[in-house]
Every structure is written in C-alpha cells, then in structure tokens.
C-alpha cells in the first residue's frame, strides 16, 4: 500500500509544517531555536546522506506533501491563538512571492538591489488605480504586475551591459532614485503614503469581512491567508516549472559562464530581461496583495533596506531553490515580526543573520540541488539503458 518513501514524504511534510507552526506561535527565542534546529537537521542530513533520500521521496510523492501543506494552511486560522500571528503568516506568504521572483535574477547571476522598487511599483500602481479611478482591486493587481514587469525590463537593461559590482551599484542607484521620486511626487502620496486602499471582494463580499465557516467566525486575515497562499502555490508551481525547463537552465548557465551560454545559442539579452520582467511581475503581484491587504502603503515599505531584507531571505533559504527561498522568507518574516517589540534591533538582527549565514552556510538552509528530471524514473531508465549497451562497447 504505502511505500516506505511515501511515509517518509508524509512525515517530512508534517514535521516541516509543525516546525513552522511552532516558530509562528512561540516567542522570538523559540523561533530562533527552530531556525537553528532546521539548520542542524539539514547539516546532519547532509553528513549522513539522508537529505537525498528525503528529497527524492518528497519529489516522488509530491501529492502527499501538497496535501499535507494544503491541509495545514486550511486549518491554520483555527489553530492560531491571535489575529496578529495570522497577519504574520499572510506577510510571510506575500514576501515569499517576492523572493521567488528575486530568485530568478539571482539565479541568473544578477544581484538585484531594487526588488523593493518592483514590489513598490506593484503596490502603488494597484493602490492608486483602485483609490483614484475606482477600478476593481483584482484588475488593478494585474495592472500592478504589468507595470512592475515594465519597470523590471527598464531596470534590466543595464544588466545587458554590466555585471557584478557595477550592476549592483546600478540597481542600488535605481532603488534610491525610486524611493526619492515617490517621496517627491505628491500625486503618489509623497511621504504620507496612500491610505484607504480598498480590499478585494468576491461578488459583494469584501475579503475584509470576518469569515464564517462551520459556525466559527474567523478573522478577516484568514481570507487573505487563503488568497495569498493559493497565489503562493501557483507562483511556486510556476517557479518550479521554469526552474526545470530550458529557461531555468539557460538562466543558470548565464550565471555560471556568459560566454558558454551565448555560444550554446542562448540569447543573453532576452533571457536577462526575462529574468527581470518575470521576477518584477512576481514582486508586483505581491505588492498589489500587500496594498489591498493592509489598506495603507507608505514609502518606508519600499526602500533600499527592504531590498536588502529580500536578498537576505533568498540567501538564508538557499539561492536557486524555490522551496528554499520560500522557507527563508517565511522564517525571516516570523523572526522579524517577533522583534516588533524590539523595533530598534531589527536591522541589527538582519545584518548579523546575514553575516552569520555568509560565514557559516553560504548555500542557505536548503541549498540548490542538481536538477533531477523526474528523478527516480530517469535514473532507473539510465541504468537499464546502460546495462543494455554497456557490454558491447568499451573505449
């Protein structure tokens, strides 16, 4: 009935969700302890080679893991002790979408310090379209994605001519310019931000109304939790598809060696701009969600330090591993929100975490893995194939 691997996949998914739940519910120390525990488990797993087994069983039994995670998200609002923690989970989901997008650029070897500008473009476009022109938030979110993607292409053009430090400096400059332009433009709300951003609504039901299921009144954050995590699921799916396609391979090869990439027929211009445009569209989507969720956006959410936080999330989770970056975003959001009472220490904590990761585990919590094309099947195929042909040729 159930193979050993399927049980393992079930177990891993449950433990993963449980750890995230504990981190979310516990105090800051508990959250940090979970982070350390997760890291410890990974290190032990790598030493003993168990990680490969776990990854293989999860990827062989995707449906089981998906079911566990879906159930977890579904029952999360019932298990959680207060609305604020639910809000943290929603924010974690929103930031995860941003980091998935940023990962396209970092996976192509372009470290982009302007992610917050893309996030902000989505948020501002969506919020302003909805408040000033009264368009439906669903529509404005799509417009936000489009405008963020356009800005992504614009910001991506320098990447065609420069690399490394120079590209980093350009994206930093563009990020600073973006922030200053928002502050200086009164039509965009200037330093006061945009208040009164309308919520999404389905039919006549606003998502900012409490949700009543099974005679229980769930806080309105639950609506957004479901919405955000459905979208997160879709973006993770898209990111995985891209990662395993020739597009993802092309991105990685550009990161490794541009000359090799171009001599294999890869159009660097197209692929680099694509990484920027798609990544920015993801960030724009998240920005739209953010505005319509919190009902207020202000420029301080879209500054250089926010960009740095996004990079920190990708790095903590593991560059070029979609599951890793989501994990990194969730964990850092949890830890960050726990530090709300110690607001002065937040940036200090980010910077120290970043240094510690870089020093001790630069590959992140879940390091990138060799692509396994339908892993197990292919491997068996290859072995069978090998044994078939093996005997008749020896060079």
């Amino acid at each position: 009935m159930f193979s050993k691997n399927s049980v393992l996949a079930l177990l891993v998914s449950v433990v993963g969700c449980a750890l995230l739940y504990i981190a979310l519910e516990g105090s800051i120390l508990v959250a940090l302890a979970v982070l350390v525990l997760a890291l410890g488990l990974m290190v032990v797993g790598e030493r003993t080679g168990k990680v490969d087994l776990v990854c293989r069983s999860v990827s062989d039994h995707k449906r089981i893991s998906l079911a566990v995670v879906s159930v977890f998200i579904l029952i999360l609002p019932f298990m959680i002790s207060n609305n604020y923690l639910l809000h943290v989970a929603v924010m974690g989901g929103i930031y995860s979408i941003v980091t998935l997008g940023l990962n396209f650029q970092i996976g192509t070897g372009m470290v982009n310090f302007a992610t917050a500008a893309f996030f902000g473009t989505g948020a501002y476009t969506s919020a302003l379209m909805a408040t000033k022109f009264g368009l439906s938030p669903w529509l404005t979110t799509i417009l936000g994605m489009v405008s963020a993607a356009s800005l992504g292409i614009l910001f991506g053009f320098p990447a065609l001519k420069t690399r490394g430090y120079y590209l980093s400096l350009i994206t930093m400059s563009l990020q600073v310019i973006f922030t200053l332009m928002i502050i200086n433009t009164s039509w965009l709300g200037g330093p006061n931000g945009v208040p009164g951003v309308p919520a999404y609504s389905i039919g006549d039901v606003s998502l900012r109304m409490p949700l009543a299921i099974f005679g229980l009144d769930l806080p309105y954050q639950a609506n957004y939790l479901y919405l955000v995590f459905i979208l997160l699921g879709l973006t993770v799916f898209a990111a995985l598809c891209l990662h395993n396609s020739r597009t993802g391979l092309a991105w990685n090869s550009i990161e490794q060696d541009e000359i090799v990439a171009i001599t294999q027929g890869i159009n660097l211009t197209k692929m680099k701009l694509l990484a920027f445009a798609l990544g920015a569209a993801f960030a724009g989507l998240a920005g739209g969600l953010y505005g319509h969720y919190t009902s207020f956006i202000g420029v301080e959410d879209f500054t250089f330090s926010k960009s740095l936080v996004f990079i920190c999330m990708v790095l903590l989770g593991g560059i070029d591993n979609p599951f890793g970056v989501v994990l990194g975003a969730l964990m850092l959001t949890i830890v960050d929100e726990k530090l709300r009472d110690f607001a002065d220490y937040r940036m200090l904590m980010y910077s120290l975490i970043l240094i510690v990761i870089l020093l001790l585990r630069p590959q992140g919590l879940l390091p990138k893995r060799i692509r396994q094309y339908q892993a197990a099947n292919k491997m068996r195929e290859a072995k069978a194939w090998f044994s078939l042909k093996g005997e008749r040729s020896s060079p």
Partner: protein
Amino acid sequence: MSLVMSQILNAVMLGCTYSLVAIGFSLFFGVMDVVVFCAGDVAIFGAFSILAIVTMTVLQPVLDTFLPQYVTIFLLVSFSAVATAALMLLMYKLVIKPFEGKSALMPLLSTIAAGIALSELIGIFYPQGRNPQAFPQLLSSDATVLGGMMSERNAIIILATIVLVTLLYWFVNKTKLGLAIQAVSQNKEAAIMIGINRQLSITVTFLIGGLILGIGGFLVASYSNIVRFDMGAMYGLKGFSAAVVGGLGSIYGAIVGGMIIAFIEVFVSAFIPGGTAYASVAAFLMVVVFILFKPEGIIGEKSVEKV
C-alpha cells in the same frame, strides 16, 4: 561674492568629503578586488567617536583650557582616525578575509551587512543615538579667510583634503610599502612571485584607508553640522559611485568622481527650481548613465575579457 562662485566653492567642499570615501573604496578595491561597502559607516563611526569625546563632560575642562584650539582638533581627529583604522582592520578580518577567493557577491553583502550592523550599534548604544546629533563647531564657519572668500571651516576642509591626498601620493609612489601596494593592486600573482608580502600590503592598505575614512567622516560631519547614525549608507553609496565614475581602483579617479557628483548635486540644488529634492536623483542618474556608457570610469583601463 557671486552666487556661482560660492556654489562652486560649496561643491568643491562637498566633493572633498566624497573624494575621501571614494579613495577608501578605490584603495580597498585595488588590493583585494572587493567593494568594501561599510566604508561610509566606518567614516560616520569616526565622526561619532569625536562627538563622544567632545561631549564627555569629564574631558571638558581639558578641551577648553589646556591646549590651543588647533592642537585639540588635531588630536581629536587623529584619535578618531586611529579608531577607524583599527575598525577597518577588524572589518577586514571579520567580513572580508573569510570570503577571499569566493564569489564577489559574498563580500559585497557581508560588508553591507557589517555597515548596517555598525550604524545600528551606534543608533542603539550612543545616547539618543537615533536622533540627529549636532556636531560641535570645532571649525568656525564665521571666521573667514582670503578676504572673505570662504569661511575658515571650508578652507580647512579643502586644505586638509589636499594635504591628505599629497601625503597619500607620496606614500604610494615614493615608499617601498606604497609601491608594494601598487604592485599587489596591479598583479597579485606577480607581486607574490617577486617576494612582496601581500598580507602586509593588504593590512597597511586597510589601515591607511581607515585613517582616510576617519578624517573624511570628520570633514563630512563638520560640513553638514549634524551627524546621524544612518548617514553612512548614503555617504558610502555616494563615495562608491564617485569611485566608479572616476574609475574603480584609481586614487585620482576617486577625486575626480567625487567632484563630479558633488558639482551635480550642488548645481541641481542651486540652479534648478525645486531642484533640492532631486539633487540625489540627478547624481544617481548620472552614475547609472556613466556606468552604462563608460564603465571603466574616467581614469581607468578598459578590461577585455579573454575567451
């Protein structure tokens, strides 16, 4: 005095402060091929160290009575320069050396993080550190020199920069150690092969860079009369931009780049209506355009990738 003239002087002064940070960036990039992003924060740390001493009540009588004013200033600046040099060396050991030979992204991020950590530590531990601090007017801006052409403060800023650059020029070109540093900058392997102590060269470069940053921090704080704990990030970004515009790795380029950025900022503020808000925007736009069309900088060699 005409408006243009006073704005030019103003720009030269601002340019001097940017140039000093840019020189720091260029020196570090030369020997290590890394962009040390915490340079701006280290400079601001230097300014805070002076601030701390001056406001320390115990030392007040000493500062006021014993010594002539210029000796006091010299001692204060020397103290902060030594402090920043030591700090820079610490930064090197903690967040730069461990990443030698790894992807360039890592030291970039680690130094950005170290810069933030440093500024946050100032914000947390300095009394009311998160509020802007008035920087003591050690250099008088009322007294004027050259027949009213410029204030004494400004004259000292410009003079100090000239003296520093001259000293640096002498050190880099005339001393054995300076030549060793140049050799390491130009060709690491060859320098090691002919028996140059690379580690020593790096250490000395970081010490000297730290000294210059300390003085730069003092000058920028004197120029703007206030210091904020988080000023370093912007100051560093402008300094890095200046270094890139001038040509990363070149000391003279750093000075030219610093002046260009300062002139753009000052002139946009002064002569374009409503331009003050857009001064930084203009400067950064110029940086973007510059990198795109002349990435090797004004003074710098075009590198050709070998296939």
